[in-house]
């Protein structure tokens, strides 16, 4: 497997798309800092340095499907997949080398994002503080690592099973954007306040709070809320958003669920790859 990994490393280093994705991850880190610092300066508030640090997962959700579908999927088009099995590498070895490459790429993109984010933060707002406890941030860092692995497993499975690069990148990108948007939307719904203050009309068209509260009809209840919580805790979209927004109530649950998701995606990918006709 060492030979396969070395071959991957050589081909990736010469790939312009990999460096374009790296540049995008770097831009993402810079953009988060500039946007956050500017917004907080307008509101005269402090911008804690940890508030955007884990947004590397959102960047990975967008960049990884492109990397996996095009870089890994290129092996189908140029016949590299068939050649590797022809010289004696087992399908399992080929698959796991692709998975390892995806995971290393995910770590690379996240690392580039963090480097640019923290570097620019130190330059613009060196006096910024943390908004959470160091222990919680460490737990989130471990969660993010496992979620990155789960994302790499998911997109590797897609890339290895979908022979067409174009279809692979379309489905992968759509899935990546869906994770981010769905995670944001579910978080919005779950954080809707359960009660709203009652207002009465006063003088000069001014609505005045009466001091009483009423049930907010927009707050999800019952089975609907349970379904949303299931999605938020057990799907990649929810896990990505929980880590990115520092909203992980139970980090151990994220580690467990991300691990299970990654394992299931890998199992499905390996089984499908073993049965696949490598034309």
């Amino acid at each position, binding site marked *: 497997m060492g030979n396969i990994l070395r071959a991957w490393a050589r081909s990736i280093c010469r790939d312009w798309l990999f460096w374009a994705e790296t540049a995008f991850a770097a831009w993402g880190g810079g953009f988060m800092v500039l946007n956050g610092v500017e917004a907080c300066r*307008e509101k005269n508030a402090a911008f804690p340095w940890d508030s955007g640090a884990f947004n590397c997962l959102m960047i990975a959700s967008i960049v990884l499907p492109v990397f996996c579908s095009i870089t890994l*999927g290129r092996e189908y088009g140029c016949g590299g997949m068939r050649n590797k099995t022809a010289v004696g590498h087992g399908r399992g070895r080929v698959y796991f080398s692709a998975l390892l490459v995806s995971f290393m790429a995910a770590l690379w993109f996240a690392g580039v994002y963090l480097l640019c984010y923290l570097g620019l933060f130190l330059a613009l707002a060196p006096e910024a503080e943390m908004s959470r406890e160091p222990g919680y941030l460490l737990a989130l860092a471990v969660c993010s690592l496992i979620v990155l692995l789960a994302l790499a497993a998911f997109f590797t499975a897609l890339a290895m099973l979908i022979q067409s*690069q*174009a279809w692979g*990148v379309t489905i992968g990108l*759509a899935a990546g954007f869906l994770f981010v948007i769905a995670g944001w939307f579910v978080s919005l719904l779950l954080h809707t306040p359960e009660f709203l203050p009652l207002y009465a009309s006063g003088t000069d068209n*001014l609505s005045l709070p009466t001091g009483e509260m009423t049930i907010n*009809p927009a707050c999800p209840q019952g089975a609907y809320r349970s379904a949303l919580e299931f999605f938020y805790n057990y799907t990649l979209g929810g896990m990505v958003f929980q880590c990115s927004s520092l909203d992980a109530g139970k980090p151990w649950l994220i580690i467990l669920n991300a691990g299970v998701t990654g394992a299931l995606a890998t199992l499905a990918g390996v089984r499908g790859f073993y049965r696949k006709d490598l034309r």
Partner: protein
Amino acid sequence: MNKLVFAGFARLKKDLAFWVCFWGMAALGVYLPVAQYFDSLRYNTVFAPDDLVFNYTPFICIAAAVFISLYLGIDYSDGTIRNKMMVGRTRNEIYMSNWVVCVIGTLLLCLAFAVPATVISLFLLGAAKAPAMAFLTTALLSILVAVAVTSIYVLVSMLCPNKAVASTICLIIPMVLFVAATVINGALMEPPTNEGMVTFTENGMEIADDSVPNPAYLTGIKRAVYEFLNDFLPVNQAIQCAGMGITNPLRFALCDLGISLASIFAGLGLFARKDLK
């Protein structure tokens, strides 16, 4: 060119990407009015079909990207572009025939949403409230938006021989534009003043201080630029169409025509020089 267009339609009928996008838009056209109806029951509010009929416009920016990049990419991968040239077709004919087929395909995707959305929302939510002229104007402008985004995606797909890279670029474009639309809309929707503080006294009375100017409110040249971008960028236009809140229809239409013509001429010029390996 007629034969190229008819051949394009024959291929469109059997294109998987087109039918996936078509049924996806149809499913959205059914889901959104039903969801809106249940929301109106839950919140005891009245929604009108006006809020729904043109909701296809933001979605078409993504659906068209998927369909066009995959549909036109096959021409390169199968070598049919070179075959078309070998039988005597000019590059301009090939480009324009693909553009015509993609525009018709995109408009069919719009109809796939609009028809069920209109029927179901009229049935569940009652009659529309907006005047007929507003409907007609919004419909025409939403068609122009669809044509503008189609022109952009055709330009990218015809110049990029790698289907996967073309799909990536075509999908990234609307996502970047959505982020820009969020930023621009957020900035334009800031109120000029912030409400003053409401405080309680010992007697329970509330005293409101004077409103203070909102530092985030855009003024001057910056506001003019943001308003222009709101009428120029396709996704911003799509959001205006979806809410039937078009502020400047003439500028809107001219921007769309400008984008379409610029994309077509740029595409024709660059495609004429392209090496079709």
